[in-house]
């Protein structure tokens, strides 16, 4: 009985629904098809959002600096915009941050727990490793060893 009553309630509320029920499905399908660049777009957006917070800047400040509409900046900050290199470089210049970098063939990225990532050449890593530097954690030592073998 209670279930029949509940179904009536549902029916009543469903009759009040206006618009599409499946916008979320479109987004999910779009994300599935475009996962690779959306992930990078999100990473870039994270860095921009963090930089704005650190520099106590608003969305409007960035829009003014870039000479674009606040709506455009909003899309960038959401992390779902397919950014051009021109826009990326413009943001890098205005915020004084690096958003993308291309490694040279003799460069690698080494993870440093608690400190993000550092970029280093194999020689630098060898030097850090042999100096017994305190900045290296146990996990890094394994990584560096592997890299030395790789570059041997």
């Amino acid at each position: 009985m209670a279930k029949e009553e509940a179904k009536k309630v549902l029916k009543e509320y469903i009759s009040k629904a206006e618009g599409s029920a499946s916008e979320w499905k479109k987004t999910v399908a779009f994300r599935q098809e475009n996962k690779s660049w959306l992930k990078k777009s999100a990473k870039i957006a994270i860095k921009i959002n963090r930089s704005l917070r650190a520099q106590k800047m608003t969305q409007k400040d960035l829009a003014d600096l870039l000479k674009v509409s606040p709506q455009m900046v909003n899309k960038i900050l959401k992390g779902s915009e397919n950014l051009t290199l021109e826009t990326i470089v413009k943001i890098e210049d205005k915020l004084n941050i690096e958003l993308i970098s291309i490694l040279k063939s003799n460069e690698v990225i080494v993870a440093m727990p608690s400190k993000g990532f550092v970029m280093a050449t194999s020689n630098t890593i060898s030097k850090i490793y042999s100096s017994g530097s305190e900045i290296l954690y146990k996990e890094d030592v394994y990584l560096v060893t592997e890299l030395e073998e790789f570059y041997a």
Partner: protein
Amino acid sequence: MRIRAIFEILKDRLFSTQYESEKSHVLDILVDNWFNVQYLEAFFEQNKADLDSLAKLYNEEITVEDAIELTIDLADELFQELYEEDGNNLKELFHALDDNEQRIYDFQKAKAKGSYKKSWLRIYAVHFDDAYVVTGGTIKLHFKMQDRIHTNEELKKLTSMKDALKLNEVDELFVYKS
């Protein structure tokens, strides 16, 4: 907050609530928020103490940046599960809100969090018959729902929906105060 309408997402099985103050129904809003870096950055910054406590509990370092990326990955996975199976996996996806409840019963408060064990995403629903009526969702970084405003709101929404479905009084009663 008053229920404005309920959208039928999958015939007779999955429904999503729209509240009067909102332009869309809950699933649309969750998809918008959980893939929105700006929203997530503000959320984790605002709930940094809870994020730090959780990281300590897991003995890991979780920065705001990590938390945002993880949330997007978790949301991708959770919504994909909801989308791909066309509702055939709802019983596996949703569990009783109270972890101590083993039995499934009508008008039970339920939650879905995806297959990743440590997921902090929650979609909340009231379950009856074979149907799940989604009432909301949030990022839950702490133990008890009553302990934070945003999770307590979700608890109130669940109770409101449960009452609404059981009482069959559409116009007046299904309001919770936020």
